[in-house]
């Protein structure tokens, strides 16, 4: 797993990220974070390709596309903030911090945004197998998604659809119920369990496709 701060030499330190807030638009929630100099924003000009899983632990603007050949977790060591002005392409994304994508977010598998600090914003559409939000201030367009769980009031249909494709181990008490031949209780999959399985290299979905 690669840590973004170890790649600092590839980025420029911004003394003022306010110009990016202007560019993205003051109406966005991420603008407040860009205006705050305490975050110490870095910028990468052009596309950035990360060849493996990413522990994203800094405040980074990618002025281009970001392609991660693995999953991104922005709360492994320190909370990360990520602004991608182009598309964000990842295998999976789990976010406790802030993510803003100016284009589309294209995940192969899971996109998970959790907790009410920070924001999840995608100006384009989110594509992936599952989008799971919980208690997260979010704004996005819905692309090709097999499952979508709303941040605050998910419907029973959404929760049922997720339960159909996600492994039971992602639910609290789900593994035990699976051993008893029962499905997990209807609810959200657990953010912590999603993170744990990603880091362990275990599948999140019941089938490969």
């Amino acid at each position, binding site marked *: 797993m690669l840590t973004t701060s*170890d790649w600092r*030499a590839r980025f420029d330190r911004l003394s003022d990220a306010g110009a990016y807030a202007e560019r993205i638009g003051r109406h966005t929630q991420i603008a407040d974070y860009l205006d705050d100099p305490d975050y110490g924003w870095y910028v990468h000009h052009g596309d950035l*390709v990360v*060849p493996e899983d990413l522990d994203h632990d800094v405040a980074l603007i990618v002025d281009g596309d970001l392609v991660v050949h*693995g999953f991104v977790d922005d709360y492994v060591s320190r909370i990360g903030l990520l602004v991608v002005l182009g598309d964000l*392409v990842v*295998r999976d994304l789990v976010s406790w911090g802030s993510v803003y994508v100016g284009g589309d977010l*294209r995940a192969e598998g899971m996109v998970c945004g959790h907790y009410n600090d920070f924001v999840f914003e995608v100006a384009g559409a989110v594509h992936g197998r599952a989008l799971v939000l919980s208690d997260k201030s979010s704004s996005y367009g819905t692309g*090709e998604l097999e499952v979508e769980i709303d941040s605050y009031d998910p419907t029973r249909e959404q929760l049922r659809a997720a339960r159909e494709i996600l492994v039971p181990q992602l639910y609290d008490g789900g593994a035990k119920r699976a051993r008893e031949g029962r499905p997990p209780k209807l609810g959200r999959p657990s953010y912590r369990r999603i993170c744990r399985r990603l880091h362990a290299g275990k599948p999140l979905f019941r089938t490969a*496709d």
Partner: protein
Amino acid sequence: MTTDLLVDEAWRRATPPARLRELAADPALARIVASRIGLPADLAEELAVRAEEGGDVPRWTPVARALAAQPATAPARLARLSAHPDEGVRRAAAVHRATPRRAVKALAADPAVAVRRALAAREKLPRSVAAVLVADPCADVRLTVARRVGARPEELDALAGDPDPRVRRVLTALGRSSAADLADPDPRVRRTAVERRGHRDLAPVLDTLAGDPDPAVRALVATRWRNHDPVSLARLAEDPDPRVRAAAADNWYTPVAQLTALAADPDRRVLAELSDNRLAPPAALTRLADTLAGLADDDTAAGREPDPEEREERRRLVHAVLGHPATPPETLRRLHALELNPYFHEGNAMSQPNWPADLLIGFALDYSGRNVEGEAERASFDRIERAVGTQPPEQVLAAMVGSPVYYLSRAVANRHVPPEALAEYARAAALSPEGHDLDDLARNPAAPRDLLLGWAAENRYCSTMMENPELPVPVLAAIAGCSDDDHAAEARDLLEVRTLRAAARGETGKPC
């Protein structure tokens, strides 16, 4: 099929390789296929051949860029891409993990700065290539080498004295420069040099630094972490720049005379820092209260209202002075009477030791009157209310300390409570800790010395004892010797400040 649908298909995980090959006939879609996660190596190579032989160079170049960053691209292909005419392709190849060493070496002589800079940021940079890059004519490249997490000592040494101040600043921040960085011609380097040093390192050069032409350097030198020298602080307290004076106002080691003078400073930032200085002397706090009263008087005389921001700043200052443990009782009385803080909270006054007894009794009765519950509390409250005006205030305070009404018992923080009542409170707390707030007792300058010594020895209540403005020296010495690093270091500083202030008063023999 529309382009958007084809784009989605090119990205879609389930699209089979055969279909991807078809889609990749179009360079715009080939770029997407070349960026796909988990791209098979053979398909990557196929796309590379197409990009090389496809003609229409501008349309196929983005495909080459994607492949130069694609983990599935083979080393031999990366070697070819590292010589591609497009700078962006070479730049991606420069950071690719699988680019062969020979190609990496060749890229060190690339004409494009962006490529050499990318090379300098590679995860694994061969020593021989790093040796070339530290002498690169472009400062951005050298800066990137300096900023590498894994920069080797010899590379950083080679960059010492670099003509570019950004490089020198990084080396200073990393502690790889000499003492000469404090005299660097660039102020940003000097700031970093001062920032990473403590008061002991800076002690020999404080006189020079206090005269630095850069106010930010002088402000840094005036902070407590970097300066324990009253002589240079006296000079910095009279600096023409308010940021420097503000830093001196917050420094425990600034002499009492200068702190008192700063209490009439025209700049609000200076006043704010002074009000935050835990060791601000009573005289400075009284003068600060006078300054605030004077500002209010001036407004009244001129018939004007301060703007909301100014009003809020003054309110914060009044709040800080009323809450400061060293503000003298009569200063508290005068400032409170001016009603400059509409958000004054009677409950907060209970933990400040210096409030005059009559005022504190009034606050406590007003505040707790709304929260009295049960017969025992009601009886105690009524008894104390009746005693006001018939008994001396100290006796009323003593009764409050023993009251079952929580907010009345918090009078235990007040210095006017008779010592025997404090001792009784401590005894009762030892028997039944619930309902007793020993943190408040620890704040009280009149708290029994033996009790404080015992707590210091047991490393208990150290945090609140440190808020006690007259903590006895033996107690401070005991905390200074305890294992808790934060409190021990703070206690040592406090002892040092008391000794310096005593010496300034001519009491060199007995500091307190």
